[in-house]
């Protein structure tokens, strides 16, 4: 059912964006290269690329190095201050990034308005310390960050605020023809009146094997928990224990899903024709096997 009509630029762009956005973790540059050849239309290609890369980068929460050893910054919607500006709360810096090249071009200090209030910052930084410890053990290739997504101006008790923990890890091994990624996003609502923390997690694992073909794994999981609203340090420990518990449990459950392929039994007796005739007769008799 191939269409005889030539596609218009808008249609070509939508198709191009589809390919880019569906690239596996860490592979968008390779996809872009192939796409450029297939598309054979640089104007459409450039537009598609400039529109897709920011979306891809944020959804995959890519990690970029800030210049002059200033550390790493995660590109996420939670830290987005402007089209190309991303906050790194840990170092109170704002990274300016080039989405298409996937690099951080410069860094500037964050303004007070861009950062959380001192009160919220106590909770945020205590949690950041715990998550750094956890992620450091659990994800050797992982990068993490804690953002304040609601109530960053809250000055003291009496109001709610919300923190988000992001852990992003990517293992690229193109020479072994396989790439893998982990993303977890935990939203923690600090409910002042109920004195409770509502924790919601979204975990996503991905893998791509392309040695003899193309096999991809895509698994998502959502979970929730809650704990008491305590001091910044105690809350941080509570939260990181919840994360650790749920993430470990999820990974264990993934491994359980291995045993679904057809079972290998004793080898089939191809040479034994008499066995066939017999089986055939039995099969007909019992009416098995359509």
């Amino acid at each position, binding site marked *: 059912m191939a*269409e*005889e009509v030539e*596609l218009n630029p808008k249609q070509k762009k939508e198709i191009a964006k589809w390919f880019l956005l569906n690239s596996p973790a860490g592979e968008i540059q390779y996809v872009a290269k*192939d796409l450029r050849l297939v598309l054979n239309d640089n104007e459409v290609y450039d537009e598609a690329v400039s529109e897709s890369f920011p979306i891809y980068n944020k959804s995959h929460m890519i990690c970029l190095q800030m210049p002059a050893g200033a550390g790493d910054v995660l590109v996420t919607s939670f830290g987005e201050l402007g089209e190309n500006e991303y906050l790194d709360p840990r170092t109170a810096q704002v990274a300016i990034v080039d989405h298409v090249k996937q690099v951080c071009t410069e860094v500037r200090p964050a303004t007070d308005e861009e950062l959380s209030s001192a009160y919220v910052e106590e909770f945020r930084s205590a949690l950041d310390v715990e998550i750094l410890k956890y992620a450091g053990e659990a*994800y050797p290739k992982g990068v993490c960050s804690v953002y304040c997504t609601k109530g960053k101006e809250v000055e003291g008790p009496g109001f709610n605020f919300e923190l988000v923990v992001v852990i992003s890890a990517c293992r690229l091994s193109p020479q072994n023809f396989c790439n893998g990624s982990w993303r977890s996003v935990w939203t923690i609502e600090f409910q002042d009146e109920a004195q409770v923390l509502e924790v919601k997690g979204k975990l996503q694992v991905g*893998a791509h094997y392309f040695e*003899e073909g193309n096999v991809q794994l895509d698994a998502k999981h959502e979970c929730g928990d809650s704990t008491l609203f305590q001091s910044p340090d105690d809350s941080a420990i509570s939260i990181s224990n919840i994360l*650790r518990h749920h993430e470990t449990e999820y990974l264990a459950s993934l491994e359980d899903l291995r045993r679904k392929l057809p079972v290998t039994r004793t080898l089939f007796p191809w040479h034994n024709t008499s066995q066939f005739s017999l089986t055939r007769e039995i099969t007909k008799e019992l009416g098995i096997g359509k």
Partner: protein
Amino acid sequence: MEAAMGLMRRMPPKHSETALSALLSLLPDHSSDLLSQVDQPLQVLFDEESGKEFILCEYNRDADSYRSPWSNKYHPPLEDALYPPAELRKLEIEANEVFAIYRDQYYEGGISSVYMWEDDNEGFVACFLIKKDGSKTAQGRRRHLEEGAWDAIHVIEVAPEEEGIARYCLTSTVMLSLTTDHESSGTFSLSGSIRRQMNMDLSVSEGHLCNMGKMIEEMEGKLRNSLDQVYFGKTKEMVCTLRPPSEVIMRLPDSTGL
């Protein structure tokens, strides 16, 4: 074309139909190449005369009709269509019967078909296909929905070598799809395709069917093992390298006192 195949190797397999039609619309001049090189899920038709389903592929197609291996008739009917010669048809019939039993033993269900035709060099080509569709185990249990599909295409070129020996070149393609949907908490999807080749020179004393069958069985076993060890194993390795299991981590006692 190379770039197009590169894209197909990277797009999520569960969207391969969309990816293929996108490429077809971008590269209409390459449509026959694309269609022949990109693996697509197997489709079936029902042969009313024999009461059985049969699998469709390029090897039983003539114009827009497909030949059933059971009745040897084209659906929809076609005049002046191509048929395998009588001797080959006999082998084809036996292959279908035997392969159906093999398929049942390994897959406990599903559909199989075998098609044969002469090639130009005194030999012939046989195509063995299996379609095992998702085993949906959702009846009554709303919590888990599981689907597992396995489509296999084995094409064997058979050529006579010296006396009593034939060369068999097998190209196998397996497309698999495994998805689990935990209603409340998330989804798991592992899908894709692998292709591998195997060549063997074998004595024809036990017949072609025996040789071809053994090769296919060996190949399927190897692909299954690869999938299990390499792919599932690599997931574990990937996930573990991303994230070592907790047994390995020394954790301080929980100090929350909750």
